[in-house]
């Protein structure tokens, strides 16, 4: 009886670990291990061989030597093309995020104040484009922004400009593409936050003499901070590492870090360098993520006490 019970108990705890270990092992194998490989290769030397990098450990004179190659990282810090790529990425992602916020906030606010029946449709209209292939939405702008494209034709036709503007293959095109692709990601968290705002708070503010604009600045805006932060994160993080948009719209003059990484790997065949670029990109992204966690953590604490 007792042995049976013990057996049942161990079987139970085994099944518990089985449930845990399947997703756990998957993520270790396909996420943690690949990441460690990238980390490892970033410290290796490029060689002409298969695979095209050196190992970190060497057996010589009966001792194991570990050789860490730091030149990849040093290069990242001194060479202009890398520094430019990082700064450009941050600048383009940052300004695009700001533009998304400026366009997205009024949209989210207006949708949140629509009557409940039309609210869902209005929100659906925001989400719908993101169901259409990302690539195709970016592609749609190629025909518009070309030098002989529709936008220039329109502007020339109206007579605002005399010579066609060069937008395609400039950073401006990349800005347009990023704002266009990521705008829904900004609107959704903002909407989720704004729709929950207790309108009685605004009524209280009006009752105490605040004009609508003042009530917005002192009540609505501060209370929607969480939505703003979440929206900015959702836009900023993928935008920094964006590869497709600068490749298709930005042209060679838009140097972003995602493209730099792909170039190192596919064009230069320099795996260690590509790995180092990836590691530094992650370190850069840690900054906004930690700030985000910090803000969230502080608000959680504030709510508990």
């Amino acid at each position, binding site marked *: 009886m007792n042995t049976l019970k013990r057996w049942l108990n161990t079987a139970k705890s085994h099944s518990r670990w089985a449930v*845990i270990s399947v997703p*756990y092992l*998957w993520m270790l194998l396909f996420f943690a291990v690949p990441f460690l490989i990238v980390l490892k290769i970033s410290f290796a030397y490029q060689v002409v061989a298969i695979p095209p990098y050196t190992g970190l450990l060497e057996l010589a004179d009966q001792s194991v030597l570990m050789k860490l190659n730091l030149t990849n990282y040093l290069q990242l810090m001194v060479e202009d093309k890398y520094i430019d790529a990082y700064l450009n990425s941050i600048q383009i992602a940052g300004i695009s995020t700001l533009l998304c916020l400026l366009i997205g906030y009024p949209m989210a606010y207006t949708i949140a104040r629509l009557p409940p029946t039309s609210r869902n449709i209005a929100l659906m209209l925001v989400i719908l484009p993101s169901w259409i292939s990302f*690539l195709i939405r970016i592609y749609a702008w190629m025909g518009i922004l070309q030098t002989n494209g529709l936008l220039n034709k329109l502007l020339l036709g109206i007579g605002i400009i005399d010579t066609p503007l060069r937008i395609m293959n400039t950073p401006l095109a990349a800005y347009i593409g990023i704002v266009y692709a990521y705008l829904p990601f900004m609107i959704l968290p903002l909407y989720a936050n704004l729709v929950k705002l207790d309108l009685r708070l605004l009524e209280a503010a009006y009752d105490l003499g605040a004009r609508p604009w003042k009530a917005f600045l002192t009540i609505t805006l501060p209370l929607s901070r969480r939505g703003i932060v979440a929206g900015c994160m959702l836009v900023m993080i993928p935008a920094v590492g964006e590869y497709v948009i600068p490749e*298709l719209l930005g042209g060679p003059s838009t140097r972003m870090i995602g493209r730099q990484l792909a170039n190192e790997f596919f064009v230069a065949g320099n795996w260690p360098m590509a790995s180092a670029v990836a590691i530094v*990109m992650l370190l850069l992204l840690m900054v906004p993520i930690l700030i985000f966690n910090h803000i969230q953590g502080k608000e959680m604490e504030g709510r508990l006490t």
Partner: protein
Amino acid sequence: MSSLHRTGLFGKGMLGFGYAFLYLPILILIIFSFNSSRISTVWSGFSFKWYIALFKDDAMLNAAWVSLKVAFASATVSVILATLAAMVLTRFRPFRGRTLFGALITAPLVMPEVVTALSLLLMFTTVSGFFGTSSKGMLSIFLAHVTFTMAFVTVVLSSRLAELDKSLEEAAMDLGANRVKVFFVITLPIIMPALVSGWLLAFTLSLDDVVIASFVSGPSATTLPMKIFSTVRLGPNPKINALASLLVMLVAQAAVIGWYIMQRQEKRRLRDIQLALKEG
């Protein structure tokens, strides 16, 4: 809602501008898919010829078929793994390594695509170096897609499970069902809508991915986004316009159907509430 809280002209104007910004490019794309000229910005007459050309493009059709297969398989596996992960995150007692588990499951959400792509590619090459086989191709894309979509699905399912009234599961246990039975008879049926939307999310993410697929796949497998990407790199192409229009119509149709179902459910819910109130 009282008139006090309606938004002014500025808000309505911004909303209109936003919608125009979101939809005009797509609309233009659709219009020019019927353009008989090759040059995508000059209108020279109505024609279906790019649609016909599209359906004669075997490479394109093949790529679409590969994409569908990968998306279907990876979404299915992803939902199964994500369900386990979400149950572990929301229902299991804390265990050793729980923090790492949570971090591993959600980290792909904030990982730039290029980094995920590079790391998976490097791993696949390392592994195939060990075994001396070429592991690139559809299998690689499938594995990569399961890994990165699983994070998204886990978030969807975790939030559904977290808001699920725990006393439902306790009640089933109280009435004599063991944990496994509770999961299959109570939990799973109740979260089924979330499972379906999680599957759809994984499916569309997989169908949509170009970066990861381009990195990890070898010459043996080309997905539709990879094919589109390599085509449009060379400039606008009317065949892609035709393809895009087809996709848009598909999505629009799905949206209308979805909206219709939602509307019907809402009506039924209201009727049920009235029914319950009347007999109170």
